[in-house]
């Protein structure tokens, strides 16, 4: 199969390319930019004039709910939503049921993802057995079957001795450790500890619930030299800690969930359970600091932190609802909004969604160099649209962004050169 994507503005941040040119794909790989490779005869032509052509998005944190919570979503349903959102790689944290703490689960997820065939699904293995934070998981075996890292899966390890050993063991195999920094005790609450929580009478989660754990973990990194990635930061002080550690040369990276860059504690007014997330939405100042962190690269990736829910999970008084936002459908649109808001230029936003997360994962993907796997996202930056609740492709309809108006929409998504999504009216 030979495909040419014609006349698009190709943005490939990994190689600082931003040019209007044809992109050639042969046998699932990038074969040339601007100039056709010798002997190229197009089987398929995609008209990309006035459109942006960029690497497929890489999402560092997406709950697909399978295995274990198929009433919320499945690998097939969420892969389709990813494809429609221009996302070609999903990284699945290990808090499935059963958790990803043994090779059989990794294999099972791989088979399901392959059968769905709409997105690449990568897995993070468990850092500790059953994610209980007591015994080490079989990290080497998990790596062997393809886990791209190990993670606490949203259940931070409370026991510092266990964590130290887990980090040490992971470092032995050069595994990157993905941590979600939130003290399980201090982080037990419903909203950012601030004026909105005071008014609404919601139990507060102080910033120290995040920064205390990060500070501890950074000291362990300093001792061990292990590569650690902190996922889903929520506060200005956390960004500061990471920036300082990076300046010192510690091998740490971090990301932000896209909703943290657009919402704040104020959005909880009216007890909107769609904005119930963990870590919580914090102050406007925190939101601005997270945006600045993404802009200057301290936060090297933006992820969806996708958590699809069945309607019942959100249809209750705030404190009885489950946290999380269904984010695959809106990852690109919300990211493009950062450009409009003047946070960072378009190529930089694309970097945080492609090459940035690829580097964190230690992968060679997220770029369009010759020989790279042809995972491609094509979007029209000028389409105005509005997200209606019925438009969500994810099975999880729990989005606070319905009714928002956007500019820029995906027209095609290619996975290994194959079109896995084409917007209505596109070939």
């Amino acid at each position: 199969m030979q495909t040419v994507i014609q006349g698009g503005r190709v943005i490939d941040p990994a190689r600082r390319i931003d040019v209007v040119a044809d992109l050639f794909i042969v046998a699932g790989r990038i074969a040339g930019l601007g100039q056709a490779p010798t002997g190229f005869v197009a089987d398929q032509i995609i008209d990309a004039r006035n459109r942006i052509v960029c690497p497929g998005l890489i999402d560092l944190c997406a709950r697909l709910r399978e295995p274990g919570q198929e009433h919320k979503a499945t690998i097939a349903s969420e892969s389709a939503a990813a494809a429609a959102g221009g996302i070609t790689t999903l990284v699945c944290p290990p808090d499935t049921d059963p958790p990803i703490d043994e090779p059989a689960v990794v294999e099972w997820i791989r088979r399901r993802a392959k059968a769905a065939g709409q997105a690449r699904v990568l897995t993070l293995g468990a850092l500790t057995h059953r994610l209980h934070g007591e015994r080490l998981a079989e990290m080497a075996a998990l790596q062997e079957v393809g886990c791209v890292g190990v993670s606490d899966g949203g259940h931070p390890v409370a026991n510092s001795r266990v964590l130290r050993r887990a980090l040490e063991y992971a470092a032995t195999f050069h595994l990157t450790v993905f941590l979600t920094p939130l003290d399980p005790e201090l982080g037990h609450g419903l909203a950012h500890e601030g004026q909105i929580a005071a008014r609404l009478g919601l139990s507060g989660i102080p910033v120290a619930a995040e920064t205390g754990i990060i500070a501890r973990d950074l000291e362990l990194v300093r001792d061990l030299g292990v590569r650690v990635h902190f996922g889903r930061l929520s506060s200005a002080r956390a960004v500061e800690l990471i920036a300082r550690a990076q300046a010192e040369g510690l091998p740490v990276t971090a990301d932000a969930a896209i909703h943290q860059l657009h919402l704040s504690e104020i959005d909880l007014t009216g007890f909107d359970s769609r904005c119930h997330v963990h870590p919580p939405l914090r102050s406007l100042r925190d939101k601005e600091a997270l945006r600045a962190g993404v802009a200057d690269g301290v936060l090297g990736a933006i992820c969806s932190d996708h958590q699809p829910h069945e309607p019942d999970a959100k249809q209750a008084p705030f404190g009885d609802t489950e946290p999380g936002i269904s984010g695959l459908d809106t990852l690109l649109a919300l990211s493009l909004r950062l450009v409009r808001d003047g946070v960072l230029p378009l190529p930089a936003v694309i970097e945080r969604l492609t090459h940035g997360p690829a580097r964190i994962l230690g992968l060679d993907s997220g770029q369009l160099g010759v020989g790279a796997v042809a995972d491609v996202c094509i979007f029209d930056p000028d389409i105005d649209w509005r997200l209606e609740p019925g438009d969500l492709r994810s099975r999880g309809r729990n989005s606070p962004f319905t009714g928002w108006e956007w500019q820029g929409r995906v027209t095609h998504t290619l996975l290994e050169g194959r079109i896995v999504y084409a917007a209505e009216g596109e070939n």
Partner: protein
Amino acid sequence: MSAAHLQLDRQGRLLHFLTVEGLTRRHLTEILDTAESLHGVAERQVKKLPTLHGKTVVNLFFEASTRTRTTFELAAKRLSADVLNLNIATSSAVKGESLLDTLRNIEAMQCDMFVVRHEQSGAAEFIARHVKPHIAVLNAGDGRHAHPTQAMLDVFTIRRHKPDFPSLRVAIVGDLLHSRVARSLIHALNILGAGEIRVIAPRTLLPAQVETLGVQVFHDPRLGLREVDVVVMLRLQRERMEGALLPSESEFFQRYGLTEERLALAQPDAIVMHPGPINRGVEIDSRVADGPQSVILEQVTNGIAVRMAIMSITLGHHARSIGESA
């Protein structure tokens, strides 16, 4: 849509009573004046008015309460309504029925008003958002968030003793962190233009940034109680010791309990209030609770008139709003 808007119709009239926050002085004054006119009913030989004749009020209590439920029941009965008491804490919620299912079932029984108490902040608002439009929802306490009828009976009681709000100094003492009573009362006092609202508690019992509610923060009652006109003591729950918020009841009483000595710091004619039930020797000394400055039992009596007022106002507006839209 915030609760402030949810509870009003297009003309700005009260359809539900979910929170005091966001209401105007006109709303509160209407309630207080109506309550004043109803206050005499209890002293009459025949204690009933026909206002809610033929209406059904459901007390929907997801959290155990005898006192509040009883005063709502009495208020409804004095307005000639039929009353149904549902104690959900011990029935369907335990069997796994969702709150929405419970609501649908009770709605199907053709009721006109839900009086709701729930352990989660925001529950009354959630229910108001989901019930059929002909049903009025009164919040009888949602988590730590709001207890607006209690706040109204508190300001009603204050107004009867101290009608000049701009010159008023009020101190609220104790567990503000968990107190829906305090949050609603602070809003009500601010809306009515109270001169000064002080909160007095150790830092563990104050929500972060409590000053943004419009209060002055004191940690020492010897300073905070000075020259106040009203002292509102809050109930201290036993479980606060287990949550590592306080070392012991006795230490709390030593530092913050309202004794005759401490009360002497306030104005000589200061009144002492408490939403009840009181813990003698924990937040308040018996001599103060039973003393001449205490209006604690008066609050209970006033609670009936205030709740009658709120019931008749909201159901009255409901009838009109439904009539207008029909």
